[in-house]
């Protein structure tokens, strides 16, 4: 008797659960909606560009709505993986240019080569950015925008220290920094140039400046190259520069704390990072914020900077691929790219390039190895670990570089 009651109750509950989930899943199905995943940068930096692309799209396709969902760089790939496994992938996704290869190789994106001619300025796309969206000769990603890394500095401190102009060589910058240190000494923990210890984007610029590289290919295999004499020379220069100009934590990264926060609190004479860092230098220093291109160790040349950027891709499971391509067309139109440029970004095509500090810095740039498993090197923090070991003195530059290099070789050559 009791048993029957229990069984009935259990069955009732189970059926109830099934019924509610079933109704929920049918209720969620909504027609005529294009889902777009953009990074929060668009939400905080250029919501107007997003809005006008949506307007254009909705005017061209009456009855359709665009659902823009903002994501964070830190976890958007995990979320995307989950949608690949479980369905509900977005129709358009913004991908960092270093993240593309792995997903293109795995077949996560739709081939949009046939739509290429419909995108504005597609014949003149920035070579580096366009390459990050191509795999096996096919187009999977549309260049969205790029950004280079520049030095953001306080002109008032520069004046106070009696420095007339922006440095034109690494040695000049180093000696300017010692003058700045004296001027800023009243602020406890002042960094003439605030550099997070494990900002590998900046550290690798030294490696490329000295003619080294992260990895090379040899007989269809990747070979880590950080232990080569030229790379080691670059890493040594980074170590020396860092130790003489920065008081940041040797284990800190460029995201936490944000360098511009240190700047806005008066803790730094200069910071290095994306050109849009000028946005957030604080009300107090807004009028005395300037930018220049990081100088090379060879006088008169810029140091090669990391060319970051984003691509827009259409996930393979999307059922609205043509519409997705159409939205991308609206979002990367010449007027949209010009608005992005006005916000301090580098537009996606050479014919739109201007002469801002950001665009000048892009003249000499470097990019990560185009290997399927590169993102594992990045996420595995191999470079960050090496940098904190070098700065902390746990290993010599050569030792740390050899360890990292072997690790990179193994990671990039995984099947």
């Amino acid at each position, binding site marked *: 008797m*009791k*048993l029957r009651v*229990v*069984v009935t109750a*259990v069955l009732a509950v189970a059926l109830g659960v099934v019924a509610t989930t079933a109704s929920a899943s049918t209720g969620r199905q909504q027609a005529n909606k294009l889902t777009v995943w953009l990074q929060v940068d668009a939400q905080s930096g250029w919501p107007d560009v997003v809005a006008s692309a949506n307007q254009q799209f909705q005017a061209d396709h009456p009855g359709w709505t665009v659902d823009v969902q903002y994501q964070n760089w*830190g976890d958007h790939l*995990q979320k995307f*993986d989950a949608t*690949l*496994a479980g369905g509900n992938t977005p129709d358009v996704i913004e991908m960092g240019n270093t993240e593309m290869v*792995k*997903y293109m*190789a*795995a*077949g*996560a994106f739709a081939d949009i080569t046939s739509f290429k001619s419909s995108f504005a300025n597609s014949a003149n796309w920035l070579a580096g950015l366009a390459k990050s969206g191509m795999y096996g000769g096919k187009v999977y990603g549309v260049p969205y925008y790029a950004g280079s890394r520049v030095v953001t500095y306080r002109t008032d401190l520069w004046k106070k220290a009696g420095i007339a102009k922006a440095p034109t060589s690494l040695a000049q910058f180093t000696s300017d920094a010692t003058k700045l240190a004296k001027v800023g000494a009243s602020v*406890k*923990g002042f960094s003439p140039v605030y550099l997070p210890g*494990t900002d590998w984007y900046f550290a690798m610029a030294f490696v490329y400046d000295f003619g080294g590289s992260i990895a090379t290919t040899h007989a269809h295999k990747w070979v880590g190259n950080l232990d080569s004499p030229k790379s080691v020379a670059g890493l040594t220069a980074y170590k020396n520069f860092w130790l003489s100009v920065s*008081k*940041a*934590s*040797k*284990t*800190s*990264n460029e*995201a*936490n*704390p944000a360098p511009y926060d*240190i700047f806005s609190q008066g*803790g730094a004479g200069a910071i290095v990072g994306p050109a849009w860092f000028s946005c957030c230098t604080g009300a107090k220093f807004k009028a005395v914020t300037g930018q220049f291109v990081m100088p090379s160790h060879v006088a008169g040349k810029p140091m090669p900077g990391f060319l970051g950027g984003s691509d827009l891709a259409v996930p*393979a*499971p999307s059922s609205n691929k043509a519409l997705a391509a159409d939205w991308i067309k609206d979002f990367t139109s010449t007027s949209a790219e010009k608005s992005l440029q006005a916000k301090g970004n580098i537009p996606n095509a050479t014919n739109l390039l201007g002469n801002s500090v950001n665009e000048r810095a892009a003249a000499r740039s470097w990019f990560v190895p185009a290997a399927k498993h590169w993102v*594992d090197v990045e*996420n*595995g*923090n*191999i470079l*960050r*670990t090496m940098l*904190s070991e070098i700065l*902390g003195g746990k290993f010599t530059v050569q030792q740390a570089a050899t360890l990292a290099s072997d690790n990179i070789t193994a990671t990039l050559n995984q099947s």
Partner: protein
Amino acid sequence: MASAAETTPSWSRRRAFSWRRAGRGTVPYALLVPVVAILGAILGYPIYSLVRLSLQKYGLFELIQHKGHYVGLHNFGLVLHDSIFWHTVLRTVIFTAANVGLTIGLGTLIALLLARVSSWVRILVTSGLVLVWAMPPVVAVQVWNWMTNYQNGVLNYVLTELHVGDYFHHDWYATTFSQLSMVTALIVWEGIPFVAITVYAALSQVPGELVEAAEIDGARPWRVFFDVTVPIIRPVLLILTSLSILWDFGVFTQAYLLIGQPQIRPGNYLMAIYLFEEGYFKNDYGKGAAISILMLLMVAALSVVLVRKMVRAGEEAET
């Protein structure tokens, strides 16, 4: 029920079959059927899936195709031949031992204190403990992060002001030991309330006459505690210890968030982080599943030992 059947001493008596007894014997099992069925559905199926996944090559490509291919025990071989795995196991065992020891030790001390203070102090301390307990781990991590901040954390400020040393710009996350010590501090702080309140409840079960008698016999406080109090509260301590071991062995949230992804590397992996980084972050789900199963086996082996001890302690307490 089960223990009654087990304690039936002689082999011959069990053979003496009676329908009435058999009928009485099956009712409890029948009553268990629904629960077993539900558990089977919500635990059994995922475990089956996990085992199947662990025997497959299942990466990003397979994820998109929704189909892996069978590779036998390859993933297990990969993990077991990886020195990172063994280092992580060792690190996690030491980490767990330190965390459990500190949590139980400090929790018990606070419980003993609670038993002796005036009632308003007890209310104050208990409320404090409950507040700590109620704080979600992610929020606690954020608070800890601010306190140990390199630039302007209050910990560095206070230590410097108290002339403990010059802690200005001290990096609490510079070495693996220091990183894991910070995580330990956070976990112990979060774990103490549960232990303290439970042990305090257990202490109220210790008969006052026994303690008094021991004291009259001239036993010192230490002896009273170890020879009178501990044996009585042993079952509770065992349960707390085993729960703490299970929780701390699989800790993820606090360690991952406090150390921060940019500083996570094979040199400071704990088991759950190893699983997450190698399995999910690197999109090698088959390997991730193999690591999960190995972790599950370790925890299961540990649980068997602990549960047996607990049952024995419970039986001793009854007699």
